């Protein structure tokens, strides 16, 4: 009896001390909470701060590589309504909002981390360590899984958005650049720029199921080691058709687009396009896809009903993306600062739009299109701006000082959300 009483008192003393210790620890940890970047894998409860973005569909997200932040621009007022600093040397690469509009995520290429931001308060909710050199990413359609590609690590990190933790790392890939989920969310397709195949991932188990070879290198490739054994330019992206059934996978070295039927995961057609196609961009009605061929500075317009090249047209150097709006296609020529415009009814060139002053040699990056297909929001890295291009009139206006070295933009539900 005495012994048990002593035990009770001793445990009271120890327990009280522990409670006091925990309380003390919580107090010392609190001041560090805003600096989440210093505390890997630490979560902060979302929604505690002031709501800066009441409607996530009404902002343009801008990823600023050199200022290591995400900026949020109100579409209506064209004002920056908030910024989320991720930490020095984060070097965010691509930004994306979850389909449910709750979170904004980005991969910090130099921090080897994924960042999760509350879409309403713009608070950094969590920093999660992932593989080496994270760049492009994707969400499962139900917003449950965030797939972060790590091209320097040849892996994809799977993050469960409910527990906000890494639940799996899919390995065995070769410079995975982009991930595409099919609409029912059961499978994801990974473009491997370091190979000539597309990886099929079972989203239930997060396992690499299959490798689909887009096309075989030609027999004569052995005579051309500088082309095929140098820096490989394989499959950057698997672009899904409007009906979600087919994938169009451009292969840079082979100069082809392989069409994959997602029902049985096999290539049903190989379409020859121009030299060194970067990837295919699908028009919003799904009728045409455009590859930008940086090898010969052309674009190939593919008729997706016939799976044939409908036209090959002259374009510019260093093309990084295509946006569709107002019946036109706008092709971004990064180093020239031009948008090459094409009429998507006649499939003919329709002029080009100079971004910035004629004397300026701006390096423009990628753009997103609003959901009304009216305006393009183009990131311009060299002058820290976003240019808004009216698709119908081709009038250009500038929003300056959005952050340092804006690399890409994103609008929730836009059909032109991509990165480079």
């Amino acid at each position, binding site marked *: 009896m005495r012994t048990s009483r002593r035990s009770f008192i001793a445990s009271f003393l120890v327990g009280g001390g522990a409670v006091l210790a925990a309380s003390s620890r919580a107090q010392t940890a609190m001041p560090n909470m805003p600096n989440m970047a210093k505390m890997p894998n630490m979560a902060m409860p979302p929604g505690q701060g002031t709501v800066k973005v009441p409607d996530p569909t009404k902002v343009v997200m801008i990823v600023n590589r050199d200022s290591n932040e995400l900026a949020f621009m109100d579409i209506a007022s064209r004002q920056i309504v908030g910024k989320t600093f991720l930490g020095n040397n984060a070097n965010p690469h691509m930004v994306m909002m979850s389909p449910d509009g709750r979170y904004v995520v980005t991969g910090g290429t130099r921090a080897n981390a994924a960042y999760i931001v509350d879409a309403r308060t713009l608070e950094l909710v969590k920093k999660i360590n992932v593989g080496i050199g994270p760049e492009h990413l994707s969400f499962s359609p139900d917003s449950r899984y965030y797939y972060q590609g790590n091209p320097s690590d040849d892996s994809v990190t799977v993050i469960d958005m409910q527990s906000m933790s890494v639940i799996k790392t899919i390995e065995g890939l070769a410079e995975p650049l982009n991930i595409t989920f099919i609409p029912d969310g059961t499978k994801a397709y990974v473009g491997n720029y370091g190979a000539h195949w597309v990886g099929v991932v079972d989203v239930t188990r997060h396992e690499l199921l299959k490798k689909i070879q887009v096309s075989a290198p030609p027999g004569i490739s052995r*005579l051309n080691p500088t082309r095929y054994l140098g820096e490989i330019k394989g499959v950057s992206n698997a672009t899904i058709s409007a009906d979600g059934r087919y994938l169009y996978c451009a292969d840079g070295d082979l100069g082809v687009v392989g069409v994959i039927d997602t029902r049985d995961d096999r290539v049903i057609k190989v379409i020859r396009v121009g030299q060194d196609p970067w990837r295919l961009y699908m028009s919003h009605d799904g009728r045409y896809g455009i590859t930008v061929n940086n090898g010969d500075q052309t674009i190939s317009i593919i008729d997706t009903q016939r799976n044939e090249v409908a036209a*090959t047209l002259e374009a510019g150097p260093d093309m990084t993306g295509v946006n569709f709006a107002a019946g036109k296609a706008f092709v971004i020529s990064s180093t020239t600062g031009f948008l090459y415009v094409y009429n998507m009814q006649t499939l003919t060139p329709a002029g080009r739009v*100079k971004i910035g002053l004629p004397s300026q040699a701006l390096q423009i990056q990628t753009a997103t299109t609003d959901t009304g297909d009216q305006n393009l929001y183009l990131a311009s890295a060299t002058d820290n701006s976003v240019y808004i291009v009216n698709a119908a009139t081709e009038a250009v206006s500038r929003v300056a000082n959005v952050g340092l070295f804006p690399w890409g933009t994103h609008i929730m539900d836009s059909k032109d959300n991509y990165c480079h």
Partner: protein
Amino acid sequence: MRGAYRGTRRRRLRLLTTCAFACVVSVAAQAQPAADDRAVLLLRLQQLEQRLNQIEGRAGMPATPPAAATGAPLDTQAILERLDAIDQRLNNLETNVVLSEPKTIVREVERYVDPAGAEFDQPAPDRRPVLTYERQRVFRRQSIGEEIEDALAAEGASGVEIGVSSVTTVQGAFKTAGQNNDGDGHVFGVTQADITFLAQSAALNTSFFADVVAIGGPGPDGEIPGLTLLNSQLARLSNNRLQMREAWIRTELFGQRLGLTVGQLDLTNYFDRNAVANDETFAFISDALVNSQVLGLANNGLGIAAIWDPKRNYNFKLGVQQSEDDPNNPVATSLSNSLFSMAEFEYIATPFGLPEGHYRIWGRLDNSTGDDRTAWGVSIDQKVTPTVTLFGRYGDGDVGEERVRHFSAGVGFQSPFAINPLDAWGIGSSQTEIKNGPNQKLAEAFYNLYLTDALRLSFMLQYVYDNSVGATYVLPGTRFVVEF
């Protein structure tokens, strides 16, 4: 009973209090050295974190303060977590980061200045935009590989790009009909070597290009002197001597819509271009299938070419060039003589649901004979499928003292109608007629084997009937191109 119970309770309480006090004193006495050790450990951790911050370029970021200083408990788990974090950061540094100093970049920025001269980042009604330059400190950590790539790219952009190429052609001639036996059974060979220089200023949209060429060897045209050249390599060039084929400066004006090229020019590089039949080094070798014979340009010369290209489905070209029949014995005494003036309109269309086609119409004025002599022509290439292209040309006009009519047509094929993906082949024919004079009928087929990016091998077969020669010939040939 109550008093005895109270006494017992007091004694028990006193005992318990004594025990508890003894325990606390004992624990405190044992904990003191451990707390000191941990404080030292935490201080060391803090120093490590500060050092890592400096290396990573976050010099301004505070390290987590030592727990002893803040009065926080000495939590082993927290220490382990901090060690893990340091370990992870060290791994990152070791694996992929070498240059960790923040970079300073000078950028062109737009600022807004009010009437009082104050500068702002954002526009306002009373502020005028001003372009200026500003140093910005950024945290784009780069690896050594990226730094090397950047350095090479910068060097390439500021340097002169030199290209080297060689084209060697061997052709044989076999007479199939006619009285003239010249060239029958003979083999001909031509080798040309080009060295090209290209310097560009992207900021000024200006480039300089020079092409020095040496060409030598007997072509079939020496023994089979028809109306058109059977080896177009020798067109507009003198044999067996080193010469400047082209040397020009090009600049772009008016929003880069107008391209102006001035210098030693070959106007056939700007006019009558054709997607299938316009390159003697990769496609047809017969000059009648490289350019319209009515263009009439004899040699390259000083000139200017202006191209208005709004990048829509049309463009417009104007060119003026001096072209002497014999550059070694020039007859022109000023830039007003031996002038060829040309104009061309090109339209791009996708008719009847076909892929793209290019439709051109051109006109030419020539004063080399003292009179203004005219010519006109059309040039078309139209894809009928993505890999099959039809082409055709027609031209009519004065060439020197003669009135000439020329037309050609053919088809070009690419993969999948080829052995290798980048191979190309085609067949074409042409007819050249001099009014009240001889005429020539020619047909050619070629197959261009794309071996590597630098090596290509072609096989050609020509058939020519020229009533100025008086015989028909078949000319098989090969062509080997090396290009770096």
